[in-house]
C-alpha cells in the first residue's frame, strides 16, 4: 500500500497557519473541543468509527469530503488504508451491522466543512493545512502539528 499522498488545500480565506508546509492535511475541530493532541492510533479509531464519543455527551461527527478531493484521497490512504470502493463498503456494512450509529457526513467544499465544524459540536474534519479556516482548532497528532517533521498526514 502506498504512503500518504498530500492533497492541495482548497484556497479560500486568509491563512492563519503561517508555517504550514504545503501538502499536509490538518485535522480540525471546534475550538471548544476538549482535546488538543491525539495519537495516530486514536485518530484512526476516530475515523474508522470505533470511537464515537469525545466524552460522554459529545458525539463524534465525521465530515469527509466527497470523492475526488485531495484531502479525501490522502485520508483514505493514510488513515483508512482503503481504496474508494473498500471505504464505501466499509461504512455501509458498519452502518448495517449497527456498529456505527451513522456514517461520515459528506462535505463538498472547505467552506461547507468550516461551516459544519462551527455548527456541529464534536465535528471533526480534514482541511489542507494551508487553508485551515479561522477559529478552528488544529489537532496535534502524536504531539505534532501539520508542517512539523514526522506529522503523519503528509
Amino acid at each position, binding site marked *: 500500500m502506498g504512503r500518504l499522498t498530500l492533497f492541495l488545500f482548497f484556497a479560500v480565506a486568509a491563512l492563519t497557519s503561517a508555517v504550514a508546509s504545503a501538502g499536509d492535511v490538518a485535522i480540525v475541530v471546534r475550538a471548544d473541543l476538549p482535546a488538543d493532541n491525539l495519537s495516530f492510533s486514536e485518530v484512526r479509531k476516530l475515523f474508522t468509527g470505533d470511537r464515537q464519543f469525545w466524552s460522554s455527551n459529545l*458525539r463524534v*461527527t465525521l*465530515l469527509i469530503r*466527497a*470523492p*475526488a478531493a485531495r484531502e479525501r484521497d490522502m485520508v483514505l490512504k493514510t488513515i483508512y488504508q482503503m481504496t474508494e470502493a473498500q471505504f*464505501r463498503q466499509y*461504512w*455501509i456494512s458498519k*452502518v*448495517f451491522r*449497527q456498529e*456505527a*450509529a*451513522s*456514517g*461520515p*457526513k*459528506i*462535505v*463538498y467544499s472547505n467552506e*461547507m466543512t468550516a*461551516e*459544519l465544524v462551527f*455548527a*456541529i*459540536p464534536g*465535528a471533526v474534519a480534514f482541511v489542507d493545512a494551508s487553508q485551515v479556516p479561522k477559529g478552528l482548532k488544529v489537532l496535534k497528532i502524536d504531539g505534532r502539528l501539520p508542517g512539523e517533521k514526522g506529522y503523519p498526514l503528509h
Partner: protein
Amino acid sequence: MTIRRRLTLSFLAILALFSLNLAIYFWSNLRRQATVESLRRAISAQVLIASINQNVNDLNKQVSLLSQVATDAAGGAAPAGADPAELSVFNGQIDAVSSQISELSELAEGAARTKVESFAKTYLDLGRSWKLFYSNFGVNQSKAITELAIRAEPLSGKVLREFLPELQRDEKSRVDAASANFYKVARLTDRITILIFALSSVFATAVAYSVSRYLTRGLRRLKEGAEAIGSGNLDQRIALPAKDELGDLAQGFDAMAANLSAARAELTLAHEQEKRKSEELSLTLDQLRRTQDQLIVQQKLASLGALTAGIAHEIKNPLNFVTNFAEILVDMLGDLRQDLGRAAEGVSDLLADLEQNAAKIREHGKRADSIVLGMLMHSRGQSGARQTINLNLLLAEYVKLAYHGMRAQDASFNVTIEEDYDSSIGPISAIPHDLSRVFLNVANNAFYAVHQKKLRAGDAFSPTLSVRTRNLGRSAEIRIRDNGDGIPEEIRQKVFEAFFTTKPAGQGTGLGLSMSYDIVVQEHRGEIRIESEPGRFAEFIITLPKGAGFE
C-alpha cells in the same frame, strides 16, 4: 323429612354442585381468557416493538447512508434534492412508525404506557428531524447534515439504544409474566375444577348412599314386619320413628296389625261363645233326650200299670178267697183241736202241722194280697204311707229274704254276705213297703248274677255280696255289690227300662229295676246308679234323702 323432600333436596344439592361446576368452568374460562388476552397483548406489543425497532433501524440506516449513496450516485458532486414522491414515501415511512407507536401505546398498560408515551414524543422529534433532514437534503446540504448530526442522531441513538431495548426488555418480561400467569391460572383453574368435581362426586355419592341406605333400611324393616304379620304374628309392630312416607307406611302396617289382632281376638271370643252355646245346647239336648226317655218309660209304665191293675184286680178275688179260706181253715183247725182235746197225741201233731201249713198259706196269701195291693197302688200312681224307718234294719231283712229265696231254689248255693251298716244314719223318712221291694229286687239280681257265674266257673269262684250303708249327712247311701259278671257299658242305661231283661224267657219280666228306679227317683227323690266292671263286679248305689227333719 319426607322421602320426596329428601330426594328433592338431594337432587337440588347435586344440581347446585353441577351449577357450581359449570360456574367454575366459566370462571376458569374467563380467567384463562383474561390471561390469554394479556398474553396476546404482550406478544402483540413485543411483535410491534420488534417491528418498530426494525423500521426505525431501517430509517436510521437510510438516513445514515443517504448522503454517501447520493453523493456516489452524483459522481462526487452534491446530490440533487429529493423529489416530492420520494419525500412523501420517506415521510410516510416515518408516519407509519408513528402510528405503530400509538398502536403500541394502546397495548401498553400503566407505567409501560408513560414509557411508550415518552418514547412516542422522542420519536416524534426524531421523525420531525429526519423529515427536516430529508427535505433539506440536496437543497441545503449543510442544514441537512447539521440537523442530522445535532438533532436526529442523538435522538435516534436514544431511540435505538435506550427506548427500544428498554421497551423490548419490558415487553419480554411482560410476555414472560403473562405466560407464567397463563400457566399458573391454567393450573389453578384445573386444580379447582378437579377439586370441585371430586367434591361433587364425593358429595353426590354420599347423598346417593345415604338416601338409598335409608330407603333400603326402612323397606327392609317394613318387609320384615310385613312378613312377621303375614306369618300370623299379629303382635309384631314395625314402629319406624321416621316422619315420612316410610313412617306412614309403617304406621299403616301397625294399624292394620292392630286391627287384625283385635279382629282375631273378637273372632276367638265369638268362637268361644259359640262353643259354649253349642255345649249348652248339647247339654240341653241330652237333658231333653233323657226327659224323652223318661217320658217313654213312664208311658210304658203307664200302659203296664193299666195292665197290671187289670191283672191284679183279677188276681185279688181268688187271693181273697185263698186268704179267707186259709183263715177259716186255721180257725176250724183250732176248733177241731179243742174238740179233740188232748186225746190223740198223733192227731194232735198232725193237726199242729196242718195248723202251721194253713197259717203259712194265710201269711203268704196275705203277702200276695199286699203285693197285689202294691201293684194296684203302683199302677194308680199312688204311694204307700211314708214312715220313719231304720234303713239298716230294712236292708238287712230284705237281703236275707232274698238270700233265702235263692237258697229255696238251689239249696247248694252259698254266698258270702259282707255287711257294713253305718249306724250314724239314724231314722229316715221313707215308704218302707216300696223301699223293701227295691232292696229285694237289687239283691235278687245280684244273687242271680253270682249264681250264674258260679254255675259256669265252679269251685274257683267264691260268690260274694257286699252290702254297705253310709251317712252322707242330708242323705244316706246304700251300696249293694256283687262279684258277678257285671253289666256291660252298652246296656248299663237300658237296665232301668221296663221289660229289659237278659234272663231266659219265662224267668224275668225286666220290670224289677224299672220299678226300683221309679221308687227311688220319683217317690223318694233319691238317686240310683250303677258302677260296674264287666267280668268282675256290679255295684248299685242308691242315695236317699233323709227327708225333712232327719238331717
